[in-house]
């Protein structure tokens, strides 16, 4: 009786694990450059199309994630590149940055974000009055 229970469980595990595909997790390269009006963030997502990019904000954290499908060439000898998940988070200090004004653009596997500075933090000249 116990032996039957054990074999039934093994079979269930076998089915479950054979369906799971290995997904490679990668932290994509990022390039952050400041400007007077805010910060530009470039994230490298090679092989990823715009439909597969997800950008979300939770509190002060901006998270970018994207899935790149597997790359295989059947009938050729060479690597089988697994499906790849790119994910990276950035903390944006709420007071200095205008989180509502973030813009994003994807082209040629490169995501470009722009995070503008909050109005009070933009550079401005202060006039000196004479007395």
């Amino acid at each position, binding site marked *: 009786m116990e032996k039957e229970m054990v074999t039934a469980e093994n079979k269930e595990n076998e089915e479950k694990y054979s369906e799971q595909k290995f997904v490679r997790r990668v932290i994509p*390269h*990022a*390039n*952050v*450059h*400041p*400007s007077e009006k805010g*910060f530009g963030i*470039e994230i*490298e*997502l*090679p*092989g*990823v*199309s715009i439909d597969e990019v997800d950008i979300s904000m939770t509190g002060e954290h901006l998270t970018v994630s994207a899935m790149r499908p597997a*790359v295989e*060439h059947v*009938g*050729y*000898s*060479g*690597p089988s*590149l697994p499906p790849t998940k790119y994910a990276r988070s950035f903390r944006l200090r709420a007071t200095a940055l205008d989180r509502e004004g973030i813009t994003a653009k994807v*082209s*040629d*596997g*490169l995501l470009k974000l722009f995070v503008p500075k909050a109005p009070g933090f933009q550079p401005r000249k202060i006039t000196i009055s004479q007395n």
Partner: protein
Amino acid sequence: MFATRNTEPLASFNTLSQIINHLELGESTDLAMWSNSEEFIVRAELPGFGSDDVEVEVEDRILRIRAIENSDDSESYLNEKSTVQRNERRVHLPFVVNIDSVKAKMDNGVLEVRLPRVESERPRKIEVNN
């Protein structure tokens, strides 16, 4: 029938050019290659580059991939940009290719080059007679 030896570290490589390619690239995935008896495929990751920004050249048994980058000297807080974009990548081809039939295309920052082997050099079956 054919004895197999388990102690051959270079057993997975068929040609010297494959060994050279492997040593130069290590385990990085930004440049990957596939081959069979008829064709060689090269896949290079060049995020941010489109078909107009990339030059692909074949000379003899070397494939050259050049990405033309607009130099951006502005200040960066973080610059992890892949260095592959600043250099020329060279790939040693395992066989002579038919240059006129080489095809290259770019999609989402990934370049794929297909190089068909010269017809006369493709492997041919030899009949075994009694």
